[in-house]
Structures are given as C-alpha cells and as structure tokens.
C-alpha cells in the first residue's frame, strides 16, 4: 500500500477556493483521505474525531491564524506529533521563525502549483 493511500490529511483554509485547490491537488496525486475545515477551532474539533498525519493550513485566517493553530496542535497530547505544512502568502522571517520554534514541518509560499505542493508534502512525509 502506497503512502498516499494511507496518509490522512486535514486542509485548513478560510477560503473555500483555496481548500478546493489544495484538495484537488492532493487528489491529483492520489491522496484521498482528506478532511477540511474553514478555521482553526473547527479544525481542532474535527481532528479530535478524525486524527490525521498531516495538517495543511493557511497562515492568514480570521480568529486563529495558522501559527496559532500550530501552537494549539502542539499543546495537545493527541495532536502534538502531527505534521504541519503552513501555506502563506508572505514568507516573512517573523512568521517562519515562529513556525520553526513551534515545530512547523514545512512551509509553502503562495501562489503554488500542484507540483510545488507535492514537493512540500514529500519533504515532510517522504515519497508519496
């Protein structure tokens, strides 16, 4: 069984367009176990019931941004070890440094193409 068949992913983005794009890209390389959430809090809630290996989250979201979500994930026993890929429009040093300290696994700058996303995921979980 290939990695892509077993990998479970949660996509978090407040824009349904972005969720659609990411899910579509994941689908194109065979990752089908994908859940999605429109904001951090609902992502955390869903994760409690649907644990995943990798969270792909937007940075700029209302209420709780991507790094705050990461913080919440790392603070919780059940989710602290989950992989985390941050998608951000601006790769500021500030954001990336904070991400590093929180244990972000990788980041991807917008705009990206499916190949770019695949690369960023494979850098975390290995060849799909």
């Amino acid at each position, binding site marked *: 069984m290939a990695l892509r068949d077993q990998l479970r992913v949660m996509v978090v983005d407040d824009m349904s367009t972005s969720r*659609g794009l990411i899910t579509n890209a994941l689908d194109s390389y065979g990752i*089908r176990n994908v859940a999605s959430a429109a904001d951090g809090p609902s992502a955390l809630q869903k994760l409690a019931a649907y644990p995943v290996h990798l969270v792909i989250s937007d940075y700029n979201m*209302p209420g709780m941004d991507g790094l705050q979500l990461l913080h*919440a*994930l790392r603070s919780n026993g059940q989710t*602290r070890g989950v*992989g985390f890929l941050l998608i951000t429009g601006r790769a500021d040093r500030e954001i990336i440094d904070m991400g590093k300290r*929180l244990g972000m696994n*990788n980041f991807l700058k917008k705009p990206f193409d499916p190949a770019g996303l695949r690369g960023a995921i494979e850098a975390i979980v*290995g060849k799909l």
Partner: protein
Amino acid sequence: MSDPMAEIRASFFIECEELLESLQDGLQLMDDGDTDPETINIVFRAVHSIKGGAGAFGLDDLVRFAHRFETAMDEVRAGRFHPDGEAIRLFFACADILGDLVRAARDDEQVDDAVTGPVLEKLDKLVGLEEEEEEVLDFTPATLSLDFGDGGGLPDLPDLPDLSALPAADPSEDTLPSLELPADMPAPVAEAAMESTAKGFTVHFKPENALYASGNEPLYLFRALRDLGDISVTCHCGDLPDLDQLDPDTGHLSWNLTVHTEEAEQAVREVFEFVDGLCVLEIKPLTGGGAMVAPAPAPALVVEQAVEIAAPEAAPLAAPQKPQVSTEAAPAPTPKPAPVAKLPVGSDDDTIDAAPKDEKTAPSVPAKATGTPTQPRATVRVDLERIDRLVNLVGELVINQAMLSQSVTEAGLPPNSPVSTGLEEFLQLTRDIQESVMMIRAQPIKSLFQRMGRIVRESSASVGKEVRLYTDGENTEVDKTVIERLADPLTHMIRNAVDHGLESTEKRLESGKSREGHVTLTAQHRSGRIVIEVSDDGAGINRERVKQKAIEKELIPADAQLSDSDIDNLLFLPGFSTAAEISNLSGRGVGMDVVKSSIQALGGRISITSHEGKGTTFSISLPLTLAVLDGMVVRVADETLVVPLNAILETLTLTDDDLKALGPETHVVQIRGGFVPLLDLGAELGYRKPQDSYVGGIVLLIGQEDGNRAALAVDAIEDQRQVVIKGLEGSYGRVPGIAAATILGDGQIALILDPTDLVGQASGRTRVRQPQQALVG
C-alpha cells in the same frame, strides 16, 4: 462532471464578491472612525485572500494590483501608516478597482491601465512604499517518520510521528514559545472542544419487548434527547445470543447515553415518558465532567468514530475499511479504561469495560456535531435558472390548484367533504411552498447599496462636492431580479441627488448647513411591499424654476394652476431636465421619466416629497415578488378582471345618500365624512358607457401610495385568490391601467389592473352629459 478546476475558478469569483463586500464594509467602518485592529485585519485579509486566489489562477493583473493594495493595507495594519479621510477615499477607490479587476478577470476582459495607474501612483505616494525584495529564507523541512504498522490497517494515530524527529526544540508544552492567542480562543482548544460542561446526565436505557411491540423506536427517543444537548450513545450488544438461538422478536440491545444539557432531569425523563414501564431506565446526573465524555482514548472507539465522521468526507475509502477497523483495532491495548465503563449501569458493566468486547460496542448515533456559533451558516450555491424553473413550476401549481378548486365546486361537493378539506390543505401547502421559493430568490439589498456607495464617491468627486452616503435597512430582502433591475434607476437617482439635489459646498455653508452633503438610502418592508427611499439634505426642488422650465418646453400651458406636488411630478415628464446647464454627470440622456418607467416595469411606483431648503426624498415602492399576487376577482360589463388586493382598502355597496353629483359628468362618494371620486371601471376601460345609476352598486375603495383614494365601481365581486402574474408587456407593450394578465381556475384569461395607474389616468365620467340624455330622451 465538468473540469474541477473550472468549478473552483467559478467559485473563486463568487467568493471574491463576498470578500469585496466585507472589504467595503470594513472600509466603511474605518471611514466612520473605527480603529479596531480587527477591522483593519478584515480589510487586509479580504485583499490578501483575493490576491492569493488570483495567484493560483494566474490572474496577473489582479495579483499585481491586489499586491500593491495589500502592501498599503499592511502598512496600516502594522501601525506604520495612519490613514486620514483622503487615504480612506483612496482605499475605497482601490476597492472599486479591485472589484472591476475581479469582474474583468471573470469575464476574460481587460481593465485599462489608465484606470489602475493613477490610483496605484497615489497609493505609493501616500503610503510611500517601494517594492521590497523578499529575502530568501533558510528553512529545512522537518520530516516525519510515519509508521503505518504491518497490517495496513489504520495507523495508531496518536503515537504515530516520532517527536524527536523534529529539528526544533522539543515542542512540549513547557518549551513551546508563547504566542499571542485570541482572547476568546484558549490555547488547548482541542481539549476544550472535547471537554464538556459538567452539566448533563447519564442514561441507561434497556427496552423491554413490550416497548418494541407498542411501536416505539429507540432511535427517535435518542433524537429527542439530542434536542436537549450534545449526546453520545453507546450501544451495548453483549447480550446478543448466537444466531441460531436468536429470536428475532426479542430485543437484546441496551444503550448507555451521555447527554450534555442545561436542562433539568425532568426534561430528560420527559423524553422517555411514553415508554415509561416498557424499559429499564436509569438517569443520573453527570459528575466529574470532562473525563466521562471526552472522546474515548481507547483506540477501538476513537477509530470507529473517526470512520463514522470521515464517511461523508472520504466515503469510498472509509467504507471498505470498516470491517478492518473492528478486527484490527480490537486487540489493541487500552491505554485508559474506556470512559463508558465508568457509567453506573448495573450488571452489564463488565461487558463494556473489557476492551476486547469493544468490537461489539458500536456507537450507533455519532454525537451531533454542533457548529460553533461563530461559523457562518452553511449555504448552497444554486444556479438562478434552477430557482426560476421552480418559481415557474410553483406558479403552474397555483393555477392548477385553482382549477382543481373550481372543478370541485362545480361537481357540487359540500364544503365539508373530504375532498374539499383536502383541497384546503393543498391550498395552504401551495402557499407555503410558494413563500419558501420566493425566499430562495430573495437576497439582502446590501450589494446594491454598496454599489451605490461607489456611485456617490465617483459622482461627488466629479462635481466637486463633499458627499456622504448613509444607508439603512441593508438587510432588507428583495427579489434578486428586482435588485438587478433596480441598479440602473437607483444609480440615476443617486447621481441626481448628488448633482441636482445637493447644493455646492459654498451654498451649503452660506445656508448654515454642514460642509458635507448627505444622501440617505433606505430600504424597508411596508405592508407587503418594499419601500426604497433616496433622500438628500439639499435645497429642495426649486418649484418656480421647474414650472418655468415646463412652460418653456411646452409641457404644460402657461396658465396652468399646479399644486406643489403637481410641480414635483413634472420631473417625471419625458424630456424634462432641470439643471440650467447639463452637467457631465446626470446629463446622460436619461431623465427621470426613464427612471419612472423602469420602476413601473417592476410593478412599482415612485413619488417625490420635497421641502424647500431641507431636501428631497424619492420614494420607490415595489411588490415583494414578481411572480404572484393576491387579487380580488371582479366582473364588470361581462369581463373578468383582477384587482390587486393590497390596493383595496374596503368594499362597499352604494346607497343613494353616499352618491353626490359633482360637475356635469362626475360623481363623488361620501365615505365617513370624506369625499372620494367615483370611477366606473367599465367606463374607464371602455367596456361600456357610464351607467344611469350607481345606487346599489358595488365599489372597491382604492388606496394609493400618496394617500389619495378613489372608489371603483364594479358589477360583482367573484372571488379572492392568489393569481400568477403573466406579463403582457412582451407582447403588447405597456397598456394603461393594466399591470399584467393571469389565468384563472377555469382556464380563462383575466387582466390584472394597475389601480394607481388607472386612477391617475381616469376620466372620472360616471354620468352622461345632460344634452346627450336629452337627445336620447
């Protein structure tokens, strides 16, 4: 299925419209002096999100502009730039252009650089920012080692990734860097989300056979319980005998439920009221809170739940995995005792406690996922055509229902026969369906008002006036078609208000008014119609000049005696233009007459009130829907007509005392001390000559928007019913006094009157001139 990317692209543009709306809202708040960082954040995020999406679709023009706008907003957000009124006006202009670019990208069009260039230049000058080079950041991705086990079953998720593989400092709770979290979002949200308030009950429920025998269904009870609060349900199947010993008529299942509710125990008991004595029921208050109810860490349960919830998301894969789940997961060691085991449920306890038996423990009802209140309500985007088809079908249903009613009446069935009562219910349902369908078509008028904001900004700039738009009732819901077709007339009215209604700044200051002119746009529901008002606090209509102009243009005779409102209404005459010199704004060949006819085409009316020195208000009144109306079916001169019910104040039978002759050809009707002109509907529509006498005749008292009334004489009132509006204008153009047509229950076509138009054009002849009578005699 069509191309998924095309679909995502289409939904991106719809999402953009929403973002543009919140962008406008945010800017408006900033303009009103709101300095809340979240407001600025909303504005920033809207631009940012549009840029992000545009980037994904390679919409370069949009990205370029959004990027500059975003950069400027980022300066504001960071507190490095404090926008003043001028800056916010520029931001509004940027938002408008951003909207143009989005729509241009959607329709594969180009926006001229001449439009974007100057604004961008101003933006850079204002914020004073050069394009910054983004530094290249060094970042080494941190790999996860994923151990999926050997069986290919679902991985043991919680322990799966090796934390030591992370290159950064061990991200345990102690060493996690502090991060500012939103006040309403405590860090361990996940735990918080899982934890319950301690309030609630545990319920043990074991139905006896008699419960099933009397037609009760446990699932319905659980659903009723779910209405009290979040519940978790565990089915206990330990008592199930082997298949060969199974008696299909005997129940073997029992349930343990946890319900989190603020309600008292009584409320929980009431759920089981009807099965009292038919089951074993134990209800105990929840103690200890969280531990009881946190999703069980026991793998079997978690995994089962995960699959339950994952099913709709990843159905094709989740489903076949299900059998694996029970077999693979069951022997897994239980890190903690399953929480359900703590339930004080009596003798069956052991069967739940033991992990291996968990395979039989199927959570039959997944706890209801309660959406967080902050989340927007779920919506579905539907092609408008589909809704229109539905509207048409409902229209046909209304006609069909009317025909059926008619047949039933003709068949001579008594009113209390089952068919008649059934039909009555059918009628009610038809109405409910119709109302619901109309509600689908309705949308807040906000989008239209926001477009008017832009018109005010642009038009005030071009005539050099300072104008502020106030809006009220933005959430008033109006039929989508009405909103679309209102855009042009409203645009013109707003331009008019800015250009003609408001005085120049100097004049305003002279007359002691504020520098800034005010234009107010309101919408509200009023007695089954929507009333939209455009008002300004300008000088009011210069009636002297209006009259002079009308005389010059030979629209009225030089010696005409006109009331103030008559003069105001001259503005609606074709070919009338008041501005002494036509400005570059309103003088676009569109007069108020065009506005009036487009409002009329929507079944609406428009009226003016003006006060000298204080301003002018245009009031548009529109029907809620364009598809059906409640009407009174009347007969006159052997013709059947429909009069809109909302125009009829009352109906009465005339007596000799009510009727007074006035002038050579007209009558008035005396109603409660007032006099109302009498109009003969038959004569007004040319069906017949005025009658000899109207004593004993039936009249409909018609009320109009402006408060004027008229009595409309008809021969008989036949029915009061809902009719489907079928437009006539496509085939016949505008017919004076007639709004539309409809199909009655017997298949006959009847005209729907436009009472206001009819009264406005009425001759009022209800008597034949004496000489004619003499001739006849």
